[in-house]
């Protein structure tokens, strides 16, 4: 508990630093955001009204003060692009990205660990080499390239999977509970809609997962291969334990510690890096929203999106530290002894 409180306290400092940095960077990008939002022909008084509303002509520290004052009350100002409150936008777009990241993360963990474990178990055999080659391809290929390939193969050539949106517009979305369509559909007992949502998620989620899962497969494989040579594995083998028991009970668990640390970072990065994939699949997510905010100098939206990602990274990292501690008691003990 003390550990969590300490981490949360550090996180507050990091978030404040992040907000100052983003606030300053967003304001040095060239262009008058108010003029850009209203267009070249908008009368000067309309542009000036928007500048006043956003405090754009105040010194930057005054602007930051206004921003912080609003942010602590959950008010991140108005978006210049969507013309409504940034908080409403985040509420609308974040669940779509989170849902995508959750499925992507599930696929990434499942396949990454499975491929890495198989590869490590069959060290230096053909299966290991095949997984290695596939992993390298996965790591060096950006997710949008996979997205384009998948769209062309499953959407254009085979025409068996949808390539756009979260559900067809002919269907009514489920009542909003979390904003994640598959979850909300399931909770409200609409299995059909849940499956349709799942079908729409397949291609974008797998496209996003391909890179990180390759990375996890490599890390799992390397740790497993090195643990295979450890004395305790030889001792378990000599005691007559079944190979499956050795692999799943004694070898895989300690081998997962580095994988899980990387997994957490990859999971948070998935949401941040999803903008091109969201663009290709017309997925109304937060990454795409953030990208548009950046291109159109939507100051309030840009800072808020970065803050959301910052918080997400922190939460995920704290969770990982806890999970790693559960997997390896020595880490927990180390924490205690250092206190």
């Amino acid at each position, binding site marked *: 508990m003390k550990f969590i409180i300490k981490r949360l306290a550090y996180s507050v400092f990091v978030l404040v630093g992040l907000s100052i940095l983003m606030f300053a960077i967003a304001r040095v990008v060239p262009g008058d955001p108010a003029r850009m939002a209203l267009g070249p022909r908008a009368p000067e008084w309309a542009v000036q009204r928007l500048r006043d509303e956003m405090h754009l002509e105040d010194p930057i520290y005054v602007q930051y003060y206004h921003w912080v004052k609003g942010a602590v009350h959950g008010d991140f100002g108005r978006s210049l692009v969507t013309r*409504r409150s940034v908080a409403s936008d985040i509420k609308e777009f974040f669940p779509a990205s989170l849902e995508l990241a959750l499925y992507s993360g599930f696929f990434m963990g499942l396949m990454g660990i499975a491929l890495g474990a198989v590869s490590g178990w069959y060290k230096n055999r053909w299966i290991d080499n095949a997984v290695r080659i596939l992993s390298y391809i996965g790591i060096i290929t950006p997710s949008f390239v996979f997205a384009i390939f998948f769209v062309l193969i499953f959407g254009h050539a085979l025409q068996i999977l949808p390539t*756009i949106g*979260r559900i067809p517009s002919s269907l009514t979305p489920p009542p909003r509970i979390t904003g994640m369509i598959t979850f909300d559909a399931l909770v409200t007992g609409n299995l059909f809609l849940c499956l349709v949502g799942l079908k729409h998620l*397949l291609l974008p989620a797998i496209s996003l997962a391909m890179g990180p899962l390759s990375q996890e497969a490599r890390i799992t494989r390397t740790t497993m291969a090195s643990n295979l040579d450890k004395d305790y594995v030889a001792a378990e083998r000599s005691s007559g334990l079944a190979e499956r028991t050795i692999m799943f009970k004694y070898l895989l668990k300690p081998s997962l510690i580095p994988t899980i640390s990387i997994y957490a970072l990859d999971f948070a990065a998935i949401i941040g890096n999803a903008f091109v994939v969201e663009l290709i699949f017309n997925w109304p997510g937060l990454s795409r929203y953030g990208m548009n905010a950046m291109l159109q100098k939507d100051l309030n939206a840009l800072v808020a999106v970065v803050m959301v990602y910052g918080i997400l990274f922190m939460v995920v990292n704290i969770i990982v530290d806890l999970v790693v501690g559960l997997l390896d008691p020595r880490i927990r003990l180390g924490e205690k002894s250092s206190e």
Partner: protein
Amino acid sequence: MKKTVRVFLIGLCVVGILFSLGVAGAAERSLTTNWSWPTYIDPAVGSDFSSSTALVNLYDTLVYPDRKGNAQPHVAKSWETSADALTWTFHLRPGIKFHDGTELTAEDVKFSMDRLTTIGEGYGFLFVGKIASSEAPDKATVVFNMKEPFGPFVTTLFRLYILNKDLVMANIKKPGPYGDKGDYGRDYLLTHDAGSGPYRVKEVHLEEYVLMEQNPNYWQPIDPQAPDEFKMIATTEPVTIRTMMSRRELEITDAWQPTESLEALDAIKGVEISKYYPGNEHYFMLHTKKPPTDDIHFRKAMAWAFDYKTEVERIWPDSPQSVGPVTRTLPGHDPTVFQYHRDLDKAREELKKSKYAGQLDKYPVEIHWVSVPADNEKEALLLMSNLADIGIECKVVKVPWMSIVEEMANIETSPNVVGVFVAPHYPEGGSLLESRYKSESVATWEQNEWLQDPKFDQMIEDAIGTVDREERFAKYGKIQHYIVDLCPSLFLFDQVEKHGYQATYIDWPSSGGECIPIMGYNFAARFIKVYPEKRAKLLK
């Protein structure tokens, strides 16, 4: 092991179910088009291509354009102007109903104009500073009092979308920036309509799509083959567009697909590429107050040196070379205006007359090109190479759009040359002349020339103050000759707009090349016919 096999089989079943899952498509007769977001459906906010398209379908206007851009009666059955052209009176048709069933009256028209000019965004610039007041003396009469005579006023009314006053006022949020009007219904109109148009909003998913359905009680006839639903999706990603077109999930593409993508679309069975000229022109804007382009002979030398043929045949195919500062499809264009062609002898002759002759090395020309679309670079390099032929040195700089806008806001930082597309704000030559060269438009991205010519200002004010159309167009003609004589720009080409469309099962009037030169009106869905049976045949 058995457990593993069981899990594997269950997984396989789930995947099988997912792949076999069929979902009923959209409405039987639907029309889907794609656009770049945002699409604002609030008439006081939206003014870009996608917003204009949505507004044209959701709202009615006092007048409606014909294929030549002339105003025809619509909600207004007739109108007249006073002798001093300061008062315009419109007589409304009775019995027009909003989507909620209430009657459209003169009070709604007055409210729409007041709201537009108070908010000042979207198409508000067309009326702000021109309208002194609006009145609704009775249910069927609306009067606009002008601050000064404005001849093209009726054509600007294509952009006055009539709102249901009662519905908007019932949905205002207080407090807001507009005093007792609160937010003037801005939040509500982000995702709802308050119109009487042939389509009404069914769903708006921000950054995803706008879905409209046909208004069954529309007061004008709607073709039985017109779509029941009109969907505007928010993506321009070429691979997605190509896939959707091949699956017949998209009927008309956006206008920003790159050449390679259009070629791929053209190769899909049943898909064709439509081409029309919406009235936009592409210019090299020359800074007339900065050396060496401040010298008229230097500018003329540039005009003679440029290779227009390569520009329109190789770099921007299908776009004809412009004839002067007004595009040929825009009413008021003068076809007798002088058109430059590449002639190096004449270029050298002009250069000799320039005050910079003999010292060209001291005055390099700075050419800035906007990073998107990529073809801008090719034409900047072409100009550099053409000018090198007559001894002019150039510096070519790639600049993001936001930086260009910032540069052009200041006379010192504006470059010698920048290539920019400009669209008319109302369908008349006067619009381009006004926004391109009037002193009021300096420091905006629509004018890098910094012309600031009092004679021109006086001429254009006189022209747009003329109510008689023929007389006004004659004045536009004189202005076009005057501008070409000053040579403040290189008039490159009239932009062609290209869309991929499903020629087999939709009948789109604008696909033939004859278009309404007003943004959005070519996508009035009630004039587009959709044949689902032909689509089904194509999918077999």
